[in-house]
């Protein structure tokens, strides 16, 4: 596979703990998780940056290659595919940031120092700017012209929030014992299930959201 050649050439350049192929696998996993999760997940910007550097190096190497070399086509396809994964990942994040902008900003402002941020620095700047733009538009076009007692714009009440109860498909990557799954109906109390490695399930997102975060399950 083209991947093997790549990591031989570039691994020696920097002190990476993972090979380029590993980074790509992790990025693919992050991309799929982000695609299927109803809420915004942790930002994997270090993976993105690493992969972008790899792409740059690969492109440089390709320009130095003899023109007409068959392998160039294969490598360029690989580059196009990787670029698609990266841009798709960032686009999905952007659309979730925009859709739930107030919710995400609120979470960011209220989080403890020990928790990690879901938004990268650049995404935070973007989210703030988007929220301000939207709010000033609604205020200047409509709210400003409304009667005085209706001019409060209560974002907490009106902001869209992600539906954590939506169902998702998942694949178990590490054995998990004693996962607590609350039943929707009042009949059963909290049910405890065991997840076996390699098994696939469909269930609500909320009980397993922590497992997605630490990588013991991945969404499919």
């Amino acid at each position, binding site marked *: 596979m083209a991947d093997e050649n790549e990591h031989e050439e570039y691994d020696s350049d920097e002190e990476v703990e993972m090979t380029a192929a590993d980074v790509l696998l992790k990025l693919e996993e992050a991309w799929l998780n982000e695609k299927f999760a109803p809420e915004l997940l942790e930002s994997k910007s270090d993976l993105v940056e690493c992969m972008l550097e790899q792409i740059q190096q690969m492109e440089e190497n390709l320009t130095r290659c003899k023109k007409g070399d068959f392998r160039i086509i294969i490598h360029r*396809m690989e580059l196009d595919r990787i670029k698609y994964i990266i841009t798709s990942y960032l686009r999905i994040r952007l659309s979730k940031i925009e859709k739930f902008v107030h919710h995400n900003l609120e979470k960011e402002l209220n989080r403890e120092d020990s928790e990690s941020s879901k938004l990268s620095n650049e995404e935070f700047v973007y989210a703030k700017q988007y929220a301000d733009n939207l709010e000033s538009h609604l205020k200047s076009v409509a709210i400003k012209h409304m009667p005085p007692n209706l001019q409060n714009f209560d974002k907490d009440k009106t902001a869209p929030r992600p539906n954590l109860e939506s169902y998702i498909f998942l694949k178990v990557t590490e054995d998990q014992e004693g996962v607590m799954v609350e039943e929707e109906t009042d009949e059963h109390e909290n049910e405890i299930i065991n997840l076996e490695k390699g098994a696939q399930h469909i269930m609500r997102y909320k009980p397993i959201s922590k497992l997605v975060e630490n990588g013991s399950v991945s969404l499919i």
Partner: protein
Amino acid sequence: MAKMFGEKALELIRELHRSSEGTLPPYNDDTLRQVLEEMRALYEENQKDVGATVAGEQGLFAGVQFRHASLERNKRCLLAYLYNRIQRIRTMRWEFGIALPKDIKENLSEQEVLWFNKYSKGLGDYMKSIGDAGLDLTQDMQPPKSLYIEVRCLVDVGEFETEDGTIILLKKNSQHFLRRSQCEHLIRQGILEHIV
């Protein structure tokens, strides 16, 4: 004919609901003003009644409550109308790029154009800040199926320089075999057509 409060506001919502997903009907400033006018009238009636109640008159509370509910409904419909238009305009930034086609731009209000430009700038700033050299997220929107694609030129454009320096003459109806990544934005603008 008895008029119901909130009817005009509902008209706005219906207008959006009837139009199909990718389109944007013209900004309905008239109806919007009428809704705001209705809100002002309702508010003034309420002010009168509140004043009268303080002065000792009875039985006005139900009316005040009813008008207040209508006011809240109007507010909700207006905000929904504006917010949903913004959503569609946002999608257009991703579809058409920074410059909107004239016939679409006509349907936007001045403030919506302002919003669009601010959104474009915010997006541009964010894209520039990715990695070392920035990353254009509006490219590579589809998973790549092949490296080169067959395209037909729809409009006379003239000379076009490809990545490796070769110059191609884009004349109407001419066909070319080009790198997919270079054609993407030309296809979206309607200059080239992907031959499947």
